[in-house]
């Protein structure tokens, strides 16, 4: 678990670093700075470049020694193989991508729908032993998935959730909920409670006050939180490989991993599948990048 979170967190800065290095290069940065950033970018991005290259190389170029960096035959066949089965029709990989979309999306929505009101409640109301409760909530994330996956496997088998998308959705939502509550509580704390007080005196109920006046101010925070939850669910591997087995339930990470380990490994297909797997998260994070840093309040309260 901790590894996944770190990945999710560190993935952001890595992506964000490189474009500014290029952009700011034009605005009078020192040569040394540009050089250092360029080196850093190459080091950080080399595996990514390698993956992208492999995904568009002909098979004989993939296995060529020495490796061909520039002069190779470009092909889209690997990407076709990701989505279309060899005999025609939908491939197992494309089903797993669809499963990933469903599982990651649904678990993120669930965690957000439950987590945002919880965060609001913890921020606004006097709750007994609030700190202890919040610590308890967070503590459920201290345990890495590998540690809890066996008991969860046994419980899931009892209630018939093993090898179901619902099972994955529930466990991902449960894992994302503490994070959502903690991160959203920070955002709710930033929104002055007076807006809701004023709204209640205007004649709204507490929930109306929250929905009409606080919630719109939380949208950037919710977007940021949801992206992190989505990235976790999308990338999650351990639960997915233990709790699912059939092709029509399996999500992309175990499905891609499953491509490696036969007598021959189709590296072109693995690389193409990885590129497809990485794209949605990249795009999504890019779309909400300004929300990731945006301030929440617009400043009508003098402090």
């Amino acid at each position: 678990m901790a590894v996944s979170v770190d990945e999710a967190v560190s993935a952001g800065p890595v992506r964000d670093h490189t474009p500014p290095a290029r952009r700011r290069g034009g605005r009078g940065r020192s040569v040394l700075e540009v050089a250092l950033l360029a080196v850093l970018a190459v080091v950080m991005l080399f595996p990514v470049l390698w993956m992208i290259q492999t995904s568009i190389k002909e098979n004989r170029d993939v296995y060529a020694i020495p490796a061909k960096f520039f002069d190779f035959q470009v092909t889209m066949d690997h990407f076709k193989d990701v989505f279309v089965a060899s005999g025609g029709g939908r491939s197992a990989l494309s089903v797993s991508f669809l499963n990933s979309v469903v599982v990651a999306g649904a678990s993120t929505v669930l965690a957000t729908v439950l987590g945002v009101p919880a965060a609001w409640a913890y921020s606004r109301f006097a709750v007994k032993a609030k700190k202890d409760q919040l610590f308890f909530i967070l503590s459920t994330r201290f345990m890495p998935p590998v540690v809890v996956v066996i008991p969860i496997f046994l419980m899931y088998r009892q209630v018939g959730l093993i090898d179901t998308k619902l099972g994955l959705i529930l466990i991902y939502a449960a894992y994302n909920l503490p994070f959502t509550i903690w991160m959203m509580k920070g955002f709710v704390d930033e929104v002055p409670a007076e807006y809701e007080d004023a709204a209640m005196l205007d004649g709204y109920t507490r929930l109306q006050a929250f929905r009409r006046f606080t919630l719109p101010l939380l949208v950037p925070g919710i977007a940021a939180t949801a992206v992190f939850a989505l990235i976790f669910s999308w990338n999650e591997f351990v639960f997915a490989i233990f709790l699912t087995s059939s092709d029509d339930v399996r999500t992309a990470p175990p499905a891609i991993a499953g491509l490696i380990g036969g007598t021959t490994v189709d590296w072109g297909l693995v690389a193409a599948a990885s590129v497809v797997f990485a794209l949605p998260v990249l795009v999504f994070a890019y779309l909400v990048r300004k929300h990731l840093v945006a301030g929440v309040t617009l400043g009508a309260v003098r402090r």
Partner: protein
Amino acid sequence: MGTVAVHGLRKSFGKVQALDGVTLDVPDGSFFVVLGPSGAGKTTTLRAIAGLEKLDAGSVHLDGRDATGDPPAARDLAMVFQNYALYPRHTAYENIASPLRARRCSSSEIAAAVEQMSRLLHIERLLQRRPAQLSGGEMQRVALARALVRRPRAFLMDEPLTNLDLKLRVEMRTELTRIHRSLGATFVYVTNDQVEALSMADQVAVLKEGKVQQVGTPTEVYERPANQWVAGFVGSPPISLLACHAEGDRLVGAEGWTLPRPRWTTAEDGRALLLGLRAEDLSVEQRGNASLPGELYGLEPLGDRTVVDVRVGTEILKVKARPTITGTPGERLLVTVDLDRAHLFDAGTGLSLSEAGR
């Protein structure tokens, strides 16, 4: 109608007892000021009336009806917050319209009401702006308009002028008094500024550490403070308090001075007392039959007057004097005391002993 009554309000935040049995009775149509230093429980009292604070004990009655458990929306009150609490994503117009929208008024009614309010408060040109585009004074007016746009039972105001600069504050003081008079509505107004309290209030309640110290008209609170603390809090410069005791027909100070015993006091001989003297009841320029010897400690010119600090023994007396007065520190002088206007407090309990004889 618009009476507000709270009885025995108690509220603690953790170990802090914010309200410790606050009982207040706000008559219909009055400008009722709750005055106290920060941390006295003023805002908590107001929030309790508004229904924003869950009480440990006590009751809130609105128009004679028990409203203790009612949600804020059901209480029919309007409030101006110290920080204005204008909705940041709404224009000034929408902010003012909000209470009417909550009550599902038609848009023509809303437009008419908002227009009327904006004329009353001179904010016609600001209606399409958002709070971030408004100055402090403008935000304050919009917040006021949002409260005044309805005719609620009572208006609650939580230090609405505190964040304004001095000039604007003085202006708004007059304006609020004018609005109050023209509406004839009940105002409950919280402030830590005694000038606001004395200049605007029909009734003042002085609060300290969650307890009501005194309720009365501004004159009563100033002229007849119920205890030593109220005497010290209300009035500027603060009242001077001298330790003394009565001895026959004399008051003998701890610093060795003597004054004729005021006729009105009934304090028995030897009881530890505090003599309270306001700056305007003392003089270094006139002679009288009761005076204290001291030496000049410092001069504080304030434009229209000068406050003279006179050291009597180890205690400092604040004396009001003409702005033209001069002197050198250390100079000996006599302070004439108007004993008819002096106050005596029990040094132990702090309670006023002046009332009985007057």
